[in-house]
């Protein structure tokens, strides 16, 4: 296994290293979650429409920027970022609710998807920590905080 301690492609991880693979899984989860959140933003309806519509927009915008940052980190490690909707969805393996669904189902599905993404991030963050890649670890800690905040908000909505 390649040890990753640097941030430049020249010195960093080769394509297929465990950390790069892990980051690509984070990328796939993040992108799939963004698409799910966007779908929910478009199709949510009912009593809480305005609040959910706006919250989902904020979330998918953040996820879009995060996906870019994660993909660029993969490149910085000397690997290639995964891409293509089919590939990303296949890697993420997230359940996709087919509209129309009750607004609470959209929220519940996003809770599961955020938990899945946070779980992947936690594993890869630990791996980055073990390999001494503090830049990747730092980026993933920040992502984890955002997912945990999102989970708190979504779960609060269902209570």
């Amino acid at each position, binding site marked *: 296994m390649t040890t990753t301690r640097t941030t430049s492609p020249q010195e960093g991880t080769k394509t297929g290293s*465990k950390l790069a*693979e*892990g980051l690509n*899984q984070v990328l796939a989860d993040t992108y799939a979650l963004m698409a799910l959140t966007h779908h929910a933003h478009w199709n949510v309806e009912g009593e809480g429409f305005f609040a959910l519509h706006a919250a989902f927009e904020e979330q998918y915008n953040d996820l879009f920027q995060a996906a870019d940052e994660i993909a660029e980190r993969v490149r910085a490690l000397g690997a290639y970022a995964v891409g293509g909707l089919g590939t990303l969805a296949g*890697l993420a*393996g*997230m*359940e996709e609710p087919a509209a129309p669904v009750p607004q*609470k*189902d959209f929220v*519940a*599905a996003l*809770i*599961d998807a955020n938990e*899945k993404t946070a*779980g*992947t991030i936690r*594993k*890869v963050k630990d791996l980055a920590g073990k390999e001494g890649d503090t830049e990747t670890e730092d980026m993933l800690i920040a992502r984890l905080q955002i997912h945990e905040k999102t989970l708190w908000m979504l*779960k609060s909505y*269902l209570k």
Partner: protein
Amino acid sequence: MSRDKNNNESEAFYSCHCTPATCRERCGHEIVDVLLHEQADKDPALIDALLDLKFALTHRTDAEEILAVFCDLRQRLERRYYLAFYRLRRWLENQLVAHVSPGRGYAARSFPLVLKSKTVQGVTQLVRDTARETDPVFISTETLRIDFAFRTPATTASGLLA
């Protein structure tokens, strides 16, 4: 689980298939167990309903019985514990299937269950409507035979066939 001993290490490490719709057999049991733990001494009626479902799932009584128990539980669960209800519902939708035929002795066609309705009768009606919309052979038959069943054979907690 050891994650460092085979070539599928990355897949095992990063791919979590344990979402309610696609998860392993035990997930529904775990949701019920967590709810039971949280409910201890709080809501006797809910605990009774949870225990009924736990018993039915553990013993894999007939699928229609499980549906009936779930519909009963749903009334107590949906408003207060929506996330648990959602996960249980999606898990059951993935575990159960409806076999529809024009009558005894005819080949049956399988339909996925959508547990929108709050009663077994409602679920059955939805399956009937879907079958009739999907296949003309079911339109001409006044009384359809609908049987609920498990998608997969029974497994134990270790994943072995019981």
